[in-house]
Each structure stands twice: as structure tokens, then as C-alpha cells.
């Protein structure tokens, strides 16, 4: 019962929205599609749902042509980024709407509506109209409606993007529990946030400018990003990427002193590379290279310090929240053992040695 897309293409008014998108979505798994705004994530979901026609390519469900199946027979539920519910119906009837269309018995409808409202924590809100609910509650109603149908395909288009941080944190945890027993449903979840993709997904698809750049488990994508673009998308803050040279056992990065090459890069041929280093692997430390603080942002419990070393921008992630003034001079140190090496086209050639095997063995 796989859902397979092959070479889906869509161009609207000269802008490419989907470029040869090929992907297979499997029942019982949660797929997160991560990408920046306008990467084509929403278009992809709409194409899978049948709400958007594609120019070319094929889409099959369990081997049968899915493109010819009209929206209302695709057995698909969708949760939108905006909180979309039927304004004229109360919470109970909102959730019951698709069940009535499916011709279920009254008792069965009541049972399923109650069950799914309870699972999103809205059991006491059956009689309210959507307009009488907060944003978080409205999104829970949409979620309950999607879950109650027990469809074969469940699409979620950045469902948390319009919610407050604390609520997002809470719903993310709830979603994790909700999705864990989805049986044979294919769940596809789009997001711009790496943390969301990492914690929710069984499979992560990285999308950029209408293309799928990489597909894999969160571990694989995070630890072996295929290109610099993937590395930047899957890390928050984006991975620092800069050019450098490897020569005679030394790594040279503009502005920094040459350091001895760390063992994981030792057997690479000499030459120019693009190096990647996570913000957590750059530190503010005495004796490093001096740079100027250009911006500071706080996210969750972390402080992201943006530092310019000459012309090159770096982001440093520090645990906890710290007052750093703009314009301060700070010392930066890069961890050579954590360098990712990419070739000049941006394709991955070497990763630092995380012990993947021991982690995946769990």
C-alpha cells in the first residue's frame, strides 16, 4: 500500500514548484518533509492530496494510478498550517463531518468522535464553535477530524507553525504520542524546524527549491548530510559552511591559524574544500581568533551568537541564555575533529566520526 511519486514536476507562471520529485511513502511510518519556506513542501502535499494538478510524473498507490483518483476518493486527511475548520459547525459536528460522508452508523460516529476528541484533549468542548476556541484548540479540532477518519494517508502541513512556542513544544510531544499508534497510515508531515523533523520522523526528506535533496532516517540525514544545502537545512542554526584548504596534513581556513588535520580527514587528497561545522562545535574561548559580534538571538534555552571573522560569518551556539552585546569582540575556536568536508560543488566527502552503529543499535 505504498504511495509512490515518480518524477513529479510542476511549473506555475515560469516558477518551478516541483522538480522531478521522486519519493516512496510507506504505511505505518511518519515521514517529515523539511525545507525552508517556498521549498515546495506544501505543493507536494497538495499534489499528493489531489488538490494540485501536476505537469508530469506519476503517482501510484499500491501500484495503481493515483493521479486519476479524484480528491474525494483518495482516502486522505489533511491538517493545514492555518487552523481550518468548518466555521458553521460545532466541534463535534466538525469531527463528525467526514464520518457522515463516509456513511458510518450514528453510534460508530459518536464513538470515533468522542475517542479522537479525547485523544487531543478536547472532550469537554463538543458544543463550542471553532471561533470560540483558541488557536491551539482549533488546531486540535483539525487534528481530531483528521485522526477520526482513520484514513490511509494523513498529511500535515506545518501544523504547528502558527502557534506559540510553549504550545508548539507541548503539541509536538502530544503528536509524537498520537502518531505512534497510527497503524497502517502513511503520515507525511512538513516542517521548517530541524528539531521537529528529528524528533517526529521515522524518515526525513529534505526538500529545497522543488527538489528532494536527501532521504533517510533522522540520524542519517543529520550525521551524513549529502550536501552543504542539506547540512544547512537540517541544522538550527544552519551549519557554518566556509572554504578552506587541506595541504600537507594541515587544514587552513581563512582568518584562522592552520591546524593539524584531525584523523577523520587524514586520508583525503590535498586541495580546496568546503568545510562545515555545527554552531555547537564553534566555541567562544580565550586564545581563539578574534571576531565581532554582529547579532545575538535566543531560541529556547540557547543563545546563538553571530560573529564576523573578517568577512566570514560564523554562528556560535552557547547553552543557556547569556547577555552578549552587539559589537563586542570575542575569540572563536573551531573544533577540527568536528569538521564536515564537502567538495567544491558542495557534496559530502567526509563526516566526523559519530558512533552511528552504537546509537542505531538501540
Amino acid at each position, binding site marked *: 500500500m505504498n504511495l509512490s511519486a515518480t518524477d513529479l514536476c510542476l511549473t506555475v507562471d515560469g516558477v518551478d514548484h516541483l522538480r522531478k520529485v521522486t519519493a516512496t511513502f510507506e504505511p505505518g511510518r511518519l515521514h517529515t518533509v523539511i525545507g525552508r519556506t517556498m521549498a515546495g513542501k506544501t505543493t507536494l502535499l497538495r499534489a499528493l492530496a489531489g488538490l494540485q494538478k501536476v505537469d508530469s510524473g506519476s503517482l501510484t498507490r499500491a501500484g495503481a494510478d493515483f493521479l486519476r483518483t479524484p480528491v*474525494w476518493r483518495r482516502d486522505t486527511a489533511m491538517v493545514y498550517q492555518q487552523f*481550518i475548520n468548518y466555521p*458553521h459547525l460545532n466541534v463535534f459536528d466538525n469531527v463528525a463531518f467526514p464520518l457522515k*460522508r463516509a456513511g458510518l452508523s450514528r453510534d460508530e460516529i459518536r464513538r470515533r468522535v468522542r475517542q479522537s476528541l479525547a485523544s487531543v484533549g478536547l472532550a469537554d468542548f463538543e458544543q463550542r464553535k471553532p471561533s470560540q476556541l483558541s488557536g491551539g484548540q482549533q488546531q486540535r479540532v483539525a487534528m481530531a477530524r483528521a485522526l477520526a477518519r482513520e484514513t490511509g494517508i494523513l498529511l500535515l502541513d506545518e501544523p504547528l507553525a502558527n502557534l506559540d512556542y510553549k504550545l508548539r513544544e507541548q503539541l509536538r510531544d502530544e503528536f509524537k504520542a498520537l502518531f505512534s499508534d497510527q497503524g497502517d497510515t502513511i503520515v507525511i508531515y512538513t516542517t521548517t524546524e530541524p528539531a521537529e523533523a528529528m524528533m517526529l520522523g521515522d524518515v526525513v526528506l529534505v526538500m529545497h527549491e522543488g527538489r528532494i535533496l536527501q532521504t533517510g532516517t533522522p540520524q542519517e540525514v543529520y550525521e551524513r548530510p549529502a550536501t552543504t544545502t542539506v547540512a544547512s537545512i537540517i541544522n538550527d542554526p544552519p551549519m557554518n559552511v566556509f572554504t578552506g584548504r587541506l595541504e600537507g596534513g594541515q587544514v587552513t581556513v581563512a582568518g584562522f591559524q592552520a591546524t593539524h588535520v584531525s584523523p577523520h580527514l587524514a586520508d583525503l587528497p590535498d586541495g580546496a574544500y568546503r568545510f562545515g561545522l555545527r554552531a555547537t562545535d564553534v566555541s567562544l574561548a580565550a586564545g581563539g581568533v578574534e571576531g565581532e559580534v554582529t547579532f545575538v538571538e535566543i531560541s529556547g534555552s540557547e543563545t546563538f551568537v553571530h560573529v564576523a571573522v573578517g568577512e566570514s560569518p560564523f554562528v556560535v551556539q552557547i547553552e543557556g541564555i547569556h547577555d552578549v552585546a552587539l559589537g563586542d569582540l570575542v575569540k572563536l575556536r573551531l573544533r577540527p575533529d568536528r569538521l564536515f568536508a564537502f567538495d567544491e560543488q558542495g557534496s559530502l566527502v567526509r563526516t566526523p566520526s559519530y558512533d552511528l552503529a552504537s546509537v542505531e543499535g538501540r
Partner: protein
Amino acid sequence: MRSRLYPVFKYTVIALWACFVAGPFFWAMTTSFKNANAVQGGPTYLPWAQYEPTLTGWRNIFGGAGGVDVIDPFVNSAIVTLAASAISLALGSLAAYALSRYRFRLGFIKNSDIVFFFVSQRIMPPVVLVIPFFYLLQWGGLLDTIPGLVIVTVALLLPIAVWVMVDFFNGIPREIDEMAMLDGCPPFQAFVRAILPNSLPGLTVAAMFCAVFGWNDFFFAFRLTFTEVQTLPQAVVALNSSIPPWWTLSAAALFGVAPLILLALWVERLLSKGNLSGAVR
């Protein structure tokens, strides 16, 4: 400067405007209770003090001697207005929904052009339209019949309905129809079950416009009906003669606008209760 005189000024302007609007009603009201002598004696406004009120005018319009019966024209007007409004709303919402949700392209003609085309029918002077209408109805054998008048009135009201509803549907998020389709409704069902119930405010406004324009139409009824069918505006005008019976005319006019006043009051109450707002945010 916002002096202390500002509120005085403000309320004076409002009061003057209210007199300007309500004055003719008051005038018609007093006149309808006068007789020939009271009318010719110059402007008088206060019953009993300035003139002796009678019911002559009102008796005349309900079949009294020397007057006409307005009941039949009233019924005709009601049938034409209700039927034409209902048809216009039904056809108009469907057309408007299509125009709001689907992209049409006929050469250089786009959706907005089609909407303009609808509305443009109302730009033309009625005199231009009435001749083709006359020949059309004649060809169909519908001159001087209620169905004929209904068809013509629909042609007049449809642009209003389309125009109001396109704007309203554009304000309803597309995602609602999409969701209804995902929830298992084919497009027409999605329209009926998910969009129409949320369109009550738009439908009410469109219905009100249709009713007002339909009810008040004189020109087309005047040109396309003769003896068999007479609408209320025609009946009122028919009362006119070389010496206008002002009291009867006034009574007929008041009787004619009464349904519209009731309709306006009802819609106003709906609006103030908030029943129409907030259906879609």
C-alpha cells in the same frame, strides 16, 4: 479646534439629514389621511389640529369607489419579486462560486472580465434593453404574463447576485472547500454542505438587494405588460390623472414600500444581533 460647540454641530447635521430623509414619509403619511379639501388648503401637518383625518385614501386603494384595488398588483409584484429573487440567488451563487474558485480563460477574457460583463448589464440604460426584451417575450408568447416578467426581472437581478456573491465567496478560505473534498464531498456537495452554510450573510445581503430592485421595478413592467398583469408600481402610477388624487396616491405608495421597510428592519435586527457576522473569520 475641537470646541464645545462640536457636538452641537454634529447633532444638528445629523438631525437635518434625518428630516430630509424622513420628511417625505411624514408628508405621505399625513396626506394619505386627508381629503380633497385638506390637500388644497396649503401645507398642513398636524391631524385634528390642522385638518380632519379621513380614511378615504386608504379605502380607495382597497377597492373603494373612485379608486383601484391594489391587492392584485401587490400579489403580482410579490410573485415576480420572490420568484425572480430566488432564481437569481440560486443561479447567481452557483455562477459566483465558479467564478470565485475556478480560473476561466477564453482568449484574453479572464474571471474578472466575466464578472465585469455581468455587472455591465446594469450600466446600460433600461431603454436600450427593453426593446430586445420586448421582442424576445413576444417571440416566446410571454408578453403580459407573470413568467415573462419573472424572466426579465431575473436578467436584471442576476448581475447583482453574482457581484455580491463573488465578493463574498472570495472571502471564504479556499481551504474550506478543499477540506470538504478531502472529507469525501464531490465539488457540488462541498459547495452545498461546506460553503453555502457559511454564506448566510452574503446571501442575505444579496437577497435584500434583489428584493428591493425587483419590487421597485416600474419601467420593465410598464413596457412588457398591458392588461392582464399589473405590478404595484404600475398600479400606483395608474392612479394618476389630470387632477391627482394625492391622498390615494400617498396611501398606495406607503402600502407599496411597507414590505421593504419591514424587510429592512428585519435585516437590521439580524445584523445587530451579530447573526450574520463572524460566520467566517
